[in-house]
């Protein structure tokens, strides 16, 4: 009887140990375009936990990392492949129901050559051809020249393009100042000299990444008469670059109407919509989130959370950015330490 019980206990122990005792291996290959990429960092993250570095890719781009079987209440493991100068690539590895191990990626983990961060971007746009310098802090918004249609002379177009950075800067600053109880953050707005059309959104995005920009603004305008005065209808797209986890890098179309006569930029800024400020506050928050250390200071998170609360207070239910603010608030909630 005792033998029978001992046998049953051993069998139970073996069953209980099951896949948890077995080590798993995840294999794959890292590529940049069609070429293998060596020395890329291979990390994994379970749920909302911070990523853990597991190894590096070899010269042929191949990697094999040991990982633990996934817990019973988790269904997937995130694989994060990063290499300085490139946007990290995130892959989701689903759990193999049989052994609890994450399944290796079937396709190579591919970096987009277009997101390479270098003095000369994959777009072929150099800092010289853009007439701009890469932002060191990542807090600069770059504006491409606007084309003005409807009979504007070159001098008026040039004047507007000359003033646009100051106009947008004033609008963003005025909005940030209006947020209650939030310390001001400093950004800059600078011109690039490359004209970008509406169809070149992807190129604008790549330029933004290569310049380490907070955002890139493209657009154009139409002159028209309004109650005896000449106004300019501006159609702009504000693309923001910072991304945190899987969230970020959005393009927001904004329509404004400004007077065409020569006025102080701060005066013209009063005609721009609050969306400029809201989108930049969101981008700033994502930028700060993306640069937080693995164990972030709770005071930093609290500051960002307060910024989002203030931003949300400025929004009505139909605000186009409300959903994004809620998502960022959810991201911040995930970072709050357990009570």
């Amino acid at each position: 009887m005792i033998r029978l019980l001992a046998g049953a206990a051993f069998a139970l122990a073996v069953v209980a140990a099951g896949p948890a005792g077995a080590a798993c291996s995840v294999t794959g290959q890292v590529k940049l375009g069609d070429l293998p990429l060596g020395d890329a960092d291979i990390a994994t993250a379970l749920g909302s936990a911070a990523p853990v570095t597991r190894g590096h890719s070899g010269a042929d781009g191949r990697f094999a990392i040991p990982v633990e079987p996934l817990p019973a209440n988790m269904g997937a493991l995130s694989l994060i492949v990063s290499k300085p100068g490139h946007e990290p690539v995130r892959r989701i590895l689903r759990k193999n129901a049989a052994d609890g191990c994450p399944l290796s990626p079937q396709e190579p983990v591919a970096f987009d050559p277009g997101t390479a961060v270098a003095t000369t971007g994959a777009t072929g746009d150099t800092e010289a051809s853009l007439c701009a310098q890469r932002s060191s802090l990542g807090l600069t918004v770059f504006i491409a020249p606007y084309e003005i249609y409807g009979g504007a002379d070159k001098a008026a177009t040039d004047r507007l393009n000359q003033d646009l950075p100051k106009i947008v800067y004033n609008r963003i600053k005025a909005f940030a100042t209006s947020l209650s109880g939030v310390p001001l953050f400093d950004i800059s707005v600078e011109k690039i000299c490359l004209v970008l059309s509406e169809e070149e959104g992807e190129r604008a995005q790549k330029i933004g990444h290569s310049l380490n920009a907070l955002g890139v603004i493209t657009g154009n305008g139409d002159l028209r008469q309004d109650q005896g005065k000449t106004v300019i209808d501006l159609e702009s797209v504000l693309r923001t670059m910072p991304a945190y986890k899987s969230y970020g890098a959005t393009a927001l179309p904004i329509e404004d109407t400004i007077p065409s006569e020569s006025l102080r930029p701060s005066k013209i800024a009063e005609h721009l919509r609050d969306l400029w400020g809201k989108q930049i506050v969101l981008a700033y928050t994502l930028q700060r989130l993306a640069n937080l250390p693995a164990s972030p200071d709770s005071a930093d998170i609290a500051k960002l959370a307060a910024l989002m609360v203030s931003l949300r207070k400025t929004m009505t239910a139909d605000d186009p950015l409300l959903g994004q603010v809620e998502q960022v608030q959810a991201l911040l909630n995930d970072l709050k330490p357990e009570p």
Partner: protein
Amino acid sequence: MEPLKESLDVLDWPTQAVNALRGALSNVNVPLPAWLAQAVVLAGFALAAWYFFRWARGEERKLVRAGQLLVGAAATIGALAILVSWGDGLMNPPSRQIVGELDGAPLAAARIDLLDYKGDSLGPAIDKDPQSRTFVITYTPEFADPPSAVVMSAPNCTEQRLKLHRAQLRGALLSVSLKCGSGT
């Protein structure tokens, strides 16, 4: 085994009824934890079953007796359904992750949210793999209070709200297909 596990969805009606009650109470600022609301309803079902079976014992009119037995049986089933869902939740806890695949729209541009019984966002962490079109929703499950639905939307696509079934809360793949086009 899977069909049996799926068939447990049939027993969701008492918890859905309890959630409707919780929603109504929450609207008048009386929020109740799911387990407490279910415990109160369970006690109510048990009391009703006991009362009607006891009453039927002394009843001589056949039709009335049949009615009393029917009500007693319905209350018993309701109570058992709550007990079974509790037992199921304890023995087979839900996954902390819902894994899905998206078709019809680029995953990078899609918005994904997880909703509670009232349709409010649970603020989950979302992970996306645009290359394999796979997404993972990570959340913290509460006892007896599973999320009710996943909402997905993308530019130029019709928003989709998918009711979550028991299997998807326990690791089965959630397949989503968005209908997109200029008319949407």
